[in-house]
C-alpha cells in the first residue's frame, strides 16, 4: 500500500473512490426502495419528480428558489448578528480582566442552554416571522465564536506582544496588527462552528413554525406523508450548509495568507 505507484494513486484517487461510493449508494438505495414499502423509502424516481415539482410549480407556499433563499438569508443574518456581537465581546474579554468579569458569568449561563430551548421564548416575543429565527440563531451561534475569540486572544504569544510594545505599538496597532491576526485562526474555527450552528438552529426553528423556508418544506412534507419531498428538502439543507461552510473557508484563506504558504 505504502509503495503505491503514481499510476495506482491516480487510479485510486479520492474523486474516483468518491464517485464509486455515490454510485454504490444509489444502487443500494434503488434496490432497498424496490424491496420495501414505497411510502417509507422513496424511489430515486419519486425524489426526482418531487425535485422538479418543488423547483417549478412549488410546494408549501413557494418554489425551491424562494424557500432556499429565505433560509439562507435568515441563517446568514442570524450568523452575522451572532458573529458581530460575539467577536467584540470576545476580544474585550480576552484583553481586559474586567470585561471578562462582566461577561463571563452571562456566557456561562447561556452556554448550556440547547438552541431548541430558545424557540418557545422566541415565538412568544417575535411570532413566527424572521425576528424569532434570528433571535434563536443569535443565541445558538454566539457562544462558539465568543469562546474561541476569547481563547484566541489569550493564547497570543506574549513575547510577540512584548516585541510589538517595545517597537512602539499603541492600542490600535496592537489590536489590528497583533491581537486580531494572532487570534484569527481560532476565531475562524469558532466562526465555522457558529455557522454550522446557525444553519442547524434555523432549520429547527423553521420546523416548529415558519411561513417559508426549507424547514417549512420538511414539515409540510411530513404532514402530507410525501417522502420524496422530504429527501429533496434534506438534500437542499445539506447543500446549502456545505456551501456556506466552504465559502467561509475561502474567506479564511483570503484573510490568513501567512498560513497558506507551507514551510
Amino acid at each position, binding site marked *: 500500500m505504502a509503495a503505491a505507484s503514481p499510476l495506482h494513486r491516480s487510479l485510486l484517487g479520492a474523486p474516483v473512490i468518491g464517485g464509486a461510493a455515490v454510485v454504490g449508494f444509489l444502487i443500494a438505495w434503488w434496490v432497498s426502495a424496490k424491496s420495501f414499502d414505497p411510502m417509507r423509502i422513496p424511489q430515486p424516481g419519486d425524489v426526482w419528480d418531487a425535485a422538479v415539482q418543488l423547483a417549478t410549480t412549488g410546494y408549501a407556499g413557494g418554489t425551491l428558489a424562494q424557500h432556499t433563499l429565505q433560509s439562507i438569508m435568515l441563517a446568514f443574518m442570524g450568523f452575522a448578528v451572532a458573529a458581530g456581537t460575539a467577536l467584540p465581546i470576545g476580544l474585550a474579554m480576552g484583553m481586559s480582566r474586567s470585561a471578562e468579569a462582566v461577561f463571563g458569568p452571562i456566557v456561562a449561563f447561556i452556554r448550556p442552554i440547547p438552541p431548541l430551548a430558545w424557540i418557545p421564548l422566541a415565538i412568544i416575543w417575535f411570532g413566527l416571522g424572521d425576528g424569532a429565527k434570528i433571535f434563536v440563531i443569535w443565541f445558538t451561534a454566539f457562544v462558539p465564536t465568543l469562546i474561541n475569540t476569547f481563547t484566541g486572544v489569550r493564547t497570543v*504569544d506574549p*513575547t*510577540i506582544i*512584548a*516585541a*510589538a*510594545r*517595545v*517597537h*512602539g*505599538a*499603541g492600542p490600535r*496597532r496592537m489590536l489590528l*496588527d*497583533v491581537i486580531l*491576526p*494572532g487570534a*484569527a485562526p481560532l476565531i475562524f474555527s469558532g466562526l465555522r462552528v457558529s455557522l454550522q450552528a446557525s444553519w442547524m438552529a434555523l432549520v429547527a426553528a423553521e420546523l416548529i413554525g415558519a411561513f417559508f423556508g426549507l424547514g417549512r418544506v420538511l414539515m409540510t412534507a411530513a404532514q402530507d406523508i410525501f417522502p420524496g419531498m422530504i429527501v429533496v428538502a434534506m438534500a437542499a439543507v445539506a447543500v446549502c450548509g456545505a456551501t456556506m461552510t466552504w465559502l467561509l473557508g475561502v474567506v479564511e484563506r483570503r484573510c*490568513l495568507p*501567512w498560513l497558506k*504558504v507551507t*514551510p
Partner: protein
Amino acid sequence: MSGIAFTDVTRAFERKGGAFQALEPVTLHVPDGEFVAIVGPSGCGKTTLLRLAAGLDHPTTGSVMVGGRAVTGPGPDRAVVFQQFALLPWKTVRQNIGFGLKCRGMSDAEARPLVERYLATMRLEGHGDSYPHQLSGGMQQRVAIARSFILEPEVLLMDEPFGALDAQTRIEMQEELIRLTAGQRRTVLFITHSVEEATYLADRVVVMAGRPGSVREIVDVASLRKAERWAERPVEEVMELDSFIRIRTRLWRLLRSAGAHRDDAATHTLPIAS
C-alpha cells in the same frame, strides 16, 4: 543622555510554594554611549535584567533608570532584540522590519527606502515578501535585528542576538554592530553566551553568577580596545592578540567559577574559539 542605571534591583517571581528570587540586589551602571556585554550561566537572570530595562517588567525592589528617568514601560528611546526573535508571523519580512516605523506614524512610502536599506544591510534581499516561517533561524534573527536597528534608538537592548547565526554571518553582524554603534554613540546592553563575542564587542563585560542572579565581576575591555585599535581591525586578527586571549581566558575562569552551569558556557563559546 541615555545611560542605564540599575540600583539595588531585585526581582522575585511567584512560584508554587513561595517566591523565587531571580535577582539578588544588582547594581549596575551603564554610562551614556557605553557598550556593555553580559555573560553568565543559563538561568542566572540576564533576560530578566534586560526586560527590566526594556520596561516589560518591574523590579520587586530597587530602581531602574534610563536616561535619568525611572522606567515605567517601553519607550521610543529603547529597542529590543529578543532571544526568541519574536517576529510577527503574519507580517512579511518587509512589514516586520518596518513595523516600528509604522507605529511611529510613518507612511509606507516614507518607510520604504529605509526598509530596503536594512534589507540590504542584513543581506535579506529577495526575501522581503517572505513570511518569517519561510526563513531559516539565522535569517529570522537578522529580521529581528533590522526591526530594532531601523528605529535608531539611543539604547539597544539585545538578548543573544547572534545566537542563531552561522560563524561567518555572526562575524559580519558583529562588525556591522560595531559600525552602527560607532556612527552614533549608542548605549548597548548585549547578552551573549560567547565570551569571544563579549570581549570583541563590549567596553565592559559583566559576568553574572546564578541562583540568585548577581553581578560577579565586571571586566574592562575599553582601554585595551582603544589602545590597540581593535575596531579598525578584522575580527580574526583581534582574536589572535595576546591581550584579547588574556581577557577571554579570564572571563572563562570567572564563568567556570560562577557556578552550576559551566558546561553550558563552555560549549557555547567553543565554535568561535576554534
